[in-house]
């Protein structure tokens, strides 16, 4: 017994060290899934207050760039109105016709906390349930895919970034319509990988990759990125490297897109599965 006590006294710092490291590694392990770490959720409310202040200072320094993106988006929308007005003049329909009901509604939000250098990146938005945001809404930066909301509190939402090893997106090549699955490999914040594209196609670097709209989260035809390279893998599929359109390092003002007919689509699909 005395030997044991002597041993403990002699190595007490080593034992405390091992215990504390054990706790730390346990925390690392439990952090893997966002929903598992309830502690962090509670404390997040505390730290986001500070983050929000810091972010409002940060915004000042990038006002010029924000203006530029807003201006270019304005031009794009003006052009779009021009196109649609022409169409509307040709057709005519009742405004109250339920076929022409809008399917997606858009909200804007600000990113107040963001990271690109982890393996599982999340970012926080300054709006929550109170402003009409819910889980599984799409988040885009300008016209480009940025992520999907995974958790909402009263005033904040946490978004799983496209730069997350768990993120999957159904995407297609715009020129030929073939679709595959888009993932991030955890290396570079400006590139992702599109797989499951069959090898009999010819792939042209520079081609646009867009969303398919199959998942009922993202509308069809949202920009994802452009093809920057490809290689043939052992199986019959290409592994295509996609240069992402959204600049995740500069993410600040984002659009949140909700699908009004999502429950209808999912319920119908469920009947046949």
């Amino acid at each position, binding site marked *: 017994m005395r030997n044991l006590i002597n041993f403990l006294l002699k190595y007490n*710092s080593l034992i405390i*060290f091992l215990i504390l490291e054990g706790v*730390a*590694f346990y*925390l*690392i392990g439990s952090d893997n899934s966002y929903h598992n770490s309830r502690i962090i959720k509670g404390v997040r409310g505390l730290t986001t207050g*500070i983050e929000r202040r*810091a972010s409002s200072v940060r915004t000042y320094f990038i006002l010029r760039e924000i203006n530029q993106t807003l201006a270019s988006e304005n031009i794009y929308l003006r052009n779009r109105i021009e196109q649609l007005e022409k169409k509307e003049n040709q057709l005519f329909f009742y405004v109250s016709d339920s076929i022409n009901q809008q399917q997606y509604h858009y909200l804007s939000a600000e990113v107040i*906390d963001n990271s690109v*250098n982890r393996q599982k990146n999340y970012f926080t938005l300054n709006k929550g349930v109170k402003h009409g945001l819910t889980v599984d809404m799409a988040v885009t930066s300008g016209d480009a895919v940025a992520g999907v909301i995974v958790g909402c509190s009263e005033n904040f939402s946490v978004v799983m970034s496209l730069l997350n090893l768990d993120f999957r997106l159904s995407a297609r090549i715009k020129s030929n319509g073939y679709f595959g699955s888009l993932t991030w490999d955890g290396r570079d914040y400006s590139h992702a990988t599109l797989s499951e594209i069959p090898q009999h196609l010819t792939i042209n670097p520079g081609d646009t990759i867009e969303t398919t709209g199959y998942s009922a989260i993202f509308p069809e035809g949202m920009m994802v990125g452009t093809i920057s390279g490809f290689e043939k893998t052992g199986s019959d599929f290409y592994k295509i490297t996609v240069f992402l359109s959204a600049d995740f390092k500069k993410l600040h003002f984002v659009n949140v897109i909700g699908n009004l007919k999502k429950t209808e689509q999912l319920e119908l699909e469920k009947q046949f599965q």
Partner: protein
Amino acid sequence: MINNTLRFGFIFILLILFQVLLFNNIQFSGYVNPYVYIMFILLLPVELPAWLLLILSFLTGLVIDFFSGSLGMHTASSVLAGFVRPYVLQILSPRDGYEPGSEPSMIIYGFRWFLIYTLIIVLIHHTALFYLEVFRFTEFFRTLLRVLLSSLFSVTFILLIEHFRKGR
């Protein structure tokens, strides 16, 4: 004693705010990310018992983890830094030992001593932190480059802060 506790409490809060509000926003090209909060562990008194040092390191890491949303990573590497500190102090001890009740500071032990002391602990801390973050060895040299560059910046900032602390 109480005076000391208050003083270190103040240093602790100041360094955490520095880290969270200023240095966490510095990310040059995804490679460099200075972590100066480790300075708190560097500055604690030489004669502080090992167990207290470990617990304080643990708390420091935990607070930083909460603010950067990366539960556990900073905690693990800070505890490691707190664990190796007594050994580093032992290796670097001056010929006639440390002055009783003193703190490892530039003003008492000189610039060269403080530089070596800071460099060793920051390197150990950053190595643990960055490898825990990527959690694999496939891009060993890329991570190593991040460790070295970030350590360079952290040490520079810590020396600057220490310099101004000395001047006050």
